């Protein structure tokens, strides 16, 4: 029974080219980031004696920056902060948004209306500006970024979960559970919440991609960790200083790294949504 189900799932997965490619890309980036100390050819932080601002060569496949640091090594290490910040922030937003969404959708009434209004207001506000406002009071750094980004994305989950709950609570199986005398809390947790997971997962994946872009934007604007720490967004803003001199490699490669990772998460999201409603395409 179980093996048959598993085979069916695998078969379905086989049709999901997007999902598989996405998983491979994300896996590749995560793996290189985790294994950075073993893979990276040079030290990403300290000054190197090689040439400064040298274009890509055999010795430095992606060139060096103004302090002679190897760009490739900085990119390999640089995925650490975006992955951590985006991943943790998206999970916090998911849990918070889901809890509020479940309560709001199930309870209805004044609570629901008030929460929906607040969430709509948050949603309509430009995310990056909201995040900047939060960072301006909290101060820059990893914790500030995680807090700001997770705050910004709570409404995204809230809307999805609430919408689903509104549909689900009218379903017969919920009524059956209620007739059996299950408490509201139990119905919410055991009967409704599990049914929202699928769509939440698709949202999560798109959301991580978006959060990576937001993180990159924030660190590009200087709200990330202080300078020597390798971070793609910050490295691009560093490269901007040498743009007029035509030193293209400082900007190009970190950007490609960001695109690759976001593309991976985006593809996973597409794959999951295709799986949930195959007719959508």
């Amino acid at each position, binding site marked *: 029974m179980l093996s048959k189900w598993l085979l069916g799932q695998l078969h379905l997965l086989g049709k999901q080219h997007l999902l598989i490619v996405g998983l491979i890309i994300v896996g590749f980036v995560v793996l290189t980031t985790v294994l950075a100390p073993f893979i990276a050819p040079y030290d990403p932080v300290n000054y190197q004696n090689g040439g400064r601002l040298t274009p890509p060569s055999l010795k430095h496949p992606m060139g060096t920056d103004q302090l002679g640091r190897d760009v490739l090594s900085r990119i390999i290490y640089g995925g650490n902060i975006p992955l951590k910040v985006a991943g943790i922030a998206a999970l916090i937003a998911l849990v918070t948004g889901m809890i509020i969404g479940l309560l709001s959708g199930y309870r209805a009434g004044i609570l629901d209306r008030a929460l929906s209004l607040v969430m709509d207001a948050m949603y309509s506000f430009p995310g990056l500006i909201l995040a*900047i406002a939060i960072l301006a009071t*909290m*101060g820059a750094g990893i914790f*500030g970024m995680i807090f700001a980004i997770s705050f910004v994305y709570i409404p995204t989950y809230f809307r999805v979960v609430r919408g689903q709950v509104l549909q689900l609570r009218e379903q017969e199986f919920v009524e059956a559970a209620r007739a059996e005398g299950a408490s509201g809390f139990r119905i919410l947790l055991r009967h409704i919440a599990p049914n929202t997971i699928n769509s939440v997962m698709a949202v999560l994946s798109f959301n991580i991609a978006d959060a990576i872009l937001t993180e990159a*934007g924030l660190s590009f604007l200087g709200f990330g960790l202080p300078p020597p720490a390798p971070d793609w967004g910050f490295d691009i803003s560093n490269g901007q200083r040498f743009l007029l001199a035509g030193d293209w490699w400082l900007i190009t490669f970190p950007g490609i790294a960001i695109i690759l990772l976001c*593309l991976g998460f985006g593809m996973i999201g597409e794959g999951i949504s295709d799986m949930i409603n195959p007719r959508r395409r």
Partner: protein
Amino acid sequence: MLFILLTLVFLILRVMPGNPCLSMLGGRNVPQTVIVRCEQKYGLNKPLYVQYVEYLVNIARGNFGTSYRTGNPVLHDIFDRFPATFELAIFSMFFAILIGMSTGIFAATHSDRPADHSLRIFNIVSFAMPIFWVGLMAQLIFAVDLKVLPVGGRLEPITAAYFHSITGFYVLDSILEGNWGLLVQVLKHLLLPSLTLGLVQSGFLGRIGRASMLEVLDKDYVTTARSKGLRRKTVIYKHALKNALIPIVTITGLQFALLLSGAILTETTFSWPGLARYLLQSINARDFYALQGTIVFFGIFISTVNLVVDIIYSFIDPRVKY
């Protein structure tokens, strides 16, 4: 809506963890006396409800405080810079709609053919591109390498020194003055930033455009129009497009918020002297009133845009009545 947004801004700046004074003064190792003095100066030591009422009353009066960096009233500074941001936003919206709609319609009318699939991939990629990176690459190619377009700013430095704007919208100004040379220069400066911002937004619009066009093409009245013997083009542009526009207008309104997020990054990339840059400079200069004022202004602006979208909506779709 506006009221909730204003409250949200208040909560973020005054109530959330973190102290704007502490963060403005460098984060740590700030003597307590200095923080207390800073809090007194901005009225942050008063009870929250007093602060809240004062905050709302001041906004209602249009009193946004005085910027400590520029010495001007914050509202004055904002209106000085807002046209630059708005001009950029309008032109990017134009490019976003142009690119998004044409690709969306094309994909829908060629659905499940290679063109459709490659456009879908383009859409996914456009979600994944950091906007500031696209801007920098555009600068590298068109300004540094090919030298056909300027790197940044709204005008050449020399022109800017002699130029006195009437409306703040440079395109409008140069048309009003009948100064075509100036108009070309302004448009040249606008092209890269607005194309960058528009390109990144177009992916989403293209996607919605495709979905809504496909849905409309399935409707009975489209089949009827086709069976009357009308040409395919006539059916698509005369019958289907109008109805497909309805969801697109809504999305365009929502996109506007996203556009402003992108504008912050685009302005930074292209040294565009707009509101977003003012916001960042205020944060760097620890200019609390300017920071608060700009964010409040963004809130007011967003609510206005949403209202306008609702009104446009009722024009396009007569079924909607308010």
